[in-house]
């Protein structure tokens, strides 16, 4: 009976880990679906191509080849080493030891050797990334956007990966029945230990490794690291139109049409409830998914002309603020069964007017994002709400609007002079 005890504990922990993970993922899914509907299922072939190029192929990361290569190592390591989890989980559930070594025969060592090489490389890269983040003064990492939790979050992830990889290697090193390519270099440090101690080291490393993986899995949804999952749907739903296009507002288009041609107006035309977005729930679900997908890398803000000239606006902060807001709303709904106003809105309380006013709509942030997030889309939706719902525009813009209305140009010139230049050629 005692023999079954570890298996039962393991099974329960596995169930708990996956159960909690699925629960949180469902909560995030519901939070994303609080956003407005938008249709993004056209041209599936082109969309799958984006999944392969942007998410799987990390094409845009290669705008900076060295960092891209380092990131790729962690990424491939992450995916491939996780194959080993199949064996670890099977062993845990069945109470076996290296259950796949028999069926795989000679290939088994080959597999584990590959995992070990990757584990070693991932460890090195994680150390390099820790140095980059904390010692080298790289602008996008020292940025105030990351003050507090976000900076800690990034470091936790790197440290967790180093620990997990080390445990994996230590576990193999303590297993005297096998000789693998990297762990065999660690084994000599363990010499002098009795077989029992080695067994204890191996078992401890095994347990800590898998429990660490479970903990990490459940940490993901609270972390910027969620991008490893959401990068895929995000790439699938990436826009397939030129970046210059601002999405149309059919409600307003119709209103203008009916004003100009009243005969076309249906008798039961309803006025739309609101224009643009003041609250996160008035953004599209795509905007909200992007907020959860953001890995806070800051490439957008480095390229942003406003951020880089010291304006308050930072596109990365726009995404982080949107995620914070929708998380708060989602928690509020879970606790109260419906949203009970907390007296706050995304616009004003999370993102200020000054930030929105600084955007030049240059698309540099959109261009730079490795997974095609558009902070610009959110900025524009908030600007629409500011101007159309709250009539909140700088004096000069109000002047520009009235010039367009009365003089058909943003400046106050006589419309009759529009072709005056033709008399000078």
């Amino acid at each position, binding site marked *: 009976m005692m023999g079954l005890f570890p298996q039962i504990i393991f099974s329960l922990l596995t169930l708990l880990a996956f159960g909690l993970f699925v629960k949180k993922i469902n909560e995030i899914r519901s939070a994303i679906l609080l956003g407005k509907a938008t249709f993004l299922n056209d041209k599936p072939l082109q969309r799958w191509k984006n999944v392969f190029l942007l998410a799987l192929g990390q094409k845009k990361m290669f705008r900076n080849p060295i960092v891209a290569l380092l990131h790729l190592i962690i990424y491939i390591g992450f995916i491939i080493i996780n194959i080993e989890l199949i064996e670890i989980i099977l062993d845990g559930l069945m109470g076996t030891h290296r259950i796949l070594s028999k069926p795989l025969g000679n290939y088994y060592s080959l597999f584990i050797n590959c995992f070990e090489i990757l584990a070693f490389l991932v460890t090195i890269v994680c150390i390099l990334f820790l140095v980059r983040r904390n010692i080298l003064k790289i602008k996008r990492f020292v940025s105030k956007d990351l003050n507090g939790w976000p900076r800690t979050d990034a470091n936790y992830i790197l440290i967790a990966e180093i620990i997990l990889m080390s445990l994996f290697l230590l576990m193999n090193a303590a297993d005297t029945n096998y000789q693998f390519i990297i762990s065999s270099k660690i084994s000599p440090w363990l010499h002098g230990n009795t077989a029992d101690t080695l067994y204890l080291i191996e078992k401890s490393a095994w347990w800590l490794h898998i429990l660490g993986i479970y903990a990490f899995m459940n940490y993901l949804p609270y972390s910027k690291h969620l991008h490893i999952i959401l990068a895929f749907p995000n790439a699938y739903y990436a826009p397939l139109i*030129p*970046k*210059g*296009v*601002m999405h*149309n*507002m059919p409600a*307003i*288009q119709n*209103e*203008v*049409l009916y004003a*100009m041609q009243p005969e076309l107006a249906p008798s039961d035309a309803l006025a739309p409830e609101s224009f*643009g977005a003041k609250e996160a729930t008035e953004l599209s679900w795509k905007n909200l998914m992007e907020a959860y997908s953001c890995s806070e890398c800051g490439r957008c803000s480095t390229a942003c*002309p*406003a951020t*880089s*000239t*010291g*304006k*308050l*606006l930072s596109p990365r902060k726009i995404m982080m603020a949107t995620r914070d807001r929708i998380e708060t709303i989602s928690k509020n709904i879970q606790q109260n069964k419906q949203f009970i106003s907390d007296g706050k809105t995304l616009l004003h309380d999370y993102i200020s007017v*000054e930030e929105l*006013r*600084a*955007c*030049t*709509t*240059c*698309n*540099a942030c*959109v*261009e730079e994002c490795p997974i095609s997030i558009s902070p610009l889309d959110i900025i*524009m939706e908030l*600007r*629409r*709400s500011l*101007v*159309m719902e709250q009539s909140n*525009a*700088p004096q*000069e*813009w109000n002047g*520009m*609007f009235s010039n*367009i*209305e009365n003089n*058909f*140009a*943003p*400046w106050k*010139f006589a419309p*009759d*002079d*529009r*072709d005056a*230049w*033709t008399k*000078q*050629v």
Partner: protein
Amino acid sequence: MKVLTMAEMAANGEQPEILFWVGCAGSFDQRAQKITKAFATILDKAGIRYAILGKEESCTGDPARRAGNEFMFQMMAYQNIQILNGYQIKKIVTTCPHCFNTLKNEYPALGGNYDVIHHTQFLEELIASGKIKILDSNEWKGKSITYHDSCYLGRANEIYEAPRKVLESLDMELREMKRCKSKGLCCGAGGAQMFKEEEKGDKRINTERADEAIETKSDFVASACPFCNTMLTDGIKNRDEDMNTSVLDIAEIIEKAIQ
């Protein structure tokens, strides 16, 4: 040289090969008018049968839309599309990347479908087809130039090569700025910023871009957008009152290099 309006052409029962959309800056701004005149001169020399809308042209609505005023945008778009469709316009060329983007990408959803090209693309075509001939001994030969990508031409519509090819046809030495093409830095005017004071920060965006242009030590800075032109001219003036580096539109450069 006579510039015909659509109304005049239609009165004679004629249809132009292409409509030249002048834009508000090109029509009213003194500096941008020079670009308009240069481009009209090129069209004339190339023997293109073109027309302008003249007094019937209105703002496309771009600055209103980017500022958040969708109502104003839709009003302007409605008026312009009525007029363009009324004249059965098929092809449009414009010297303004903002007008270009709106006409090309945003009017189709509202019932305005036209083949829209930017003047740098049109110039590239005119040179390639031999409709305009670059003089062997043009005044730009051997001079150095740096080209500033307009966001609405570049990232927004991925037109990076046409303007560069036009400049290369002049035997000029094209020097790239630190940030160019898809990484190009905005001049600071887009998103209706042209019509308001910049938000507070450590530096003006146009000064930042002017510094990058000056760093290339080029004789000239080429632009392809009337707003970039203004912003860069101001930015360079801030750093160098004598304006040793002048900012010219690609149309102005070409106009002086053809017969």
